[in-house]
């Protein structure tokens, strides 16, 4: 296996991961909530959610949207952002991500960052499964040329 030494960013990724872990910890320690982005989005758009249920989630999403923009704007940090797919393929992929995360009760933040830290058996299985299907998907699309 060849490591992509040009793009591998061990320290930045580790520090970024630590920040993400802190974000999750904060949310659990103070608000008692799992930091699962799909769940947060679902609750925001659920017409039955109350103001109390919706407001901290909207605040979370607002922070998540604004902070990266602020950092790029005011520190000159220029992140690489290289999209992989477009148009209809992007739409289908996004739809599958949404569908899967709703049925599976979580995504990389909910099951990955939070579930694994809680030693959740459900989350471990979810992570193993989605990692496997994601890697298989990349393999199929890259090497068998399907969908590209």
């Amino acid at each position, binding site marked *: 296996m060849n490591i992509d030494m040009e793009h591998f960013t061990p320290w930045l990724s580790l520090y970024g991961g630590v920040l993400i872990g802190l974000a999750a910890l904060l949310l659990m320690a103070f608000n008692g909530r799992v930091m699962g982005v799909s769940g947060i989005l679902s609750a925001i758009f659920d017409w039955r959610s109350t103001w109390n249920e919706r407001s901290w989630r909207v605040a979370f999403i607002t922070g998540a949207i604004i902070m990266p923009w602020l950092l790029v704007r005011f520190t000159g940090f220029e992140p690489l952002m290289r999209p992989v797919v477009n148009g209809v393929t992007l739409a289908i992929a996004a739809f*599958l991500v949404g569908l899967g995360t709703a049925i599976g009760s979580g995504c990389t933040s909910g099951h990955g960052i939070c579930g694994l830290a809680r030693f959740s058996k459900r989350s471990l299985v979810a992570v193993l499964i989605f990692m496997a299907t994601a890697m298989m*998907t990349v393999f199929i699309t890259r090497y068998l040329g399907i969908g590209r």
Partner: protein
Amino acid sequence: MTRIVGFISGSLFGAGLLLSGMLDPTKVIGFLDLGGLWDPSLAFVMGGGVIVNAIGHSFLHRRSKPLIAKAFMLPEKKDLDLPLCIGAAIFGIGWGIAGLCPGPAVASLLLNHFYSMQFVLFLLAGLQLGNMIKKFK
């Protein structure tokens, strides 16, 4: 106060995603692409996040309630079931196609405007359908 904490948590989350390179779909695919040049970065993101969170959780265990809210709201289900497995599989396929999942898509909305917005719109549509299916399963 829970709103302020929500905002701070979201901000740290967004900052972490930016710094770690997870807003770059190609970088995420680079981790999922075992056959080509492999970029282990995502493992470092997960590792850093899970370890920090796990250590913090070990201190939280002693508490009966959170610091501000009235109770811990943890997932109730403990057993494995079919929706978990099927949902994760479907999520993985979408993730493997686009290299984006909910967190990075939202966090990159102001950096990538139309691209991220398109993803988020269809993500929300998928979420809606998934939530409806869950109600009738």
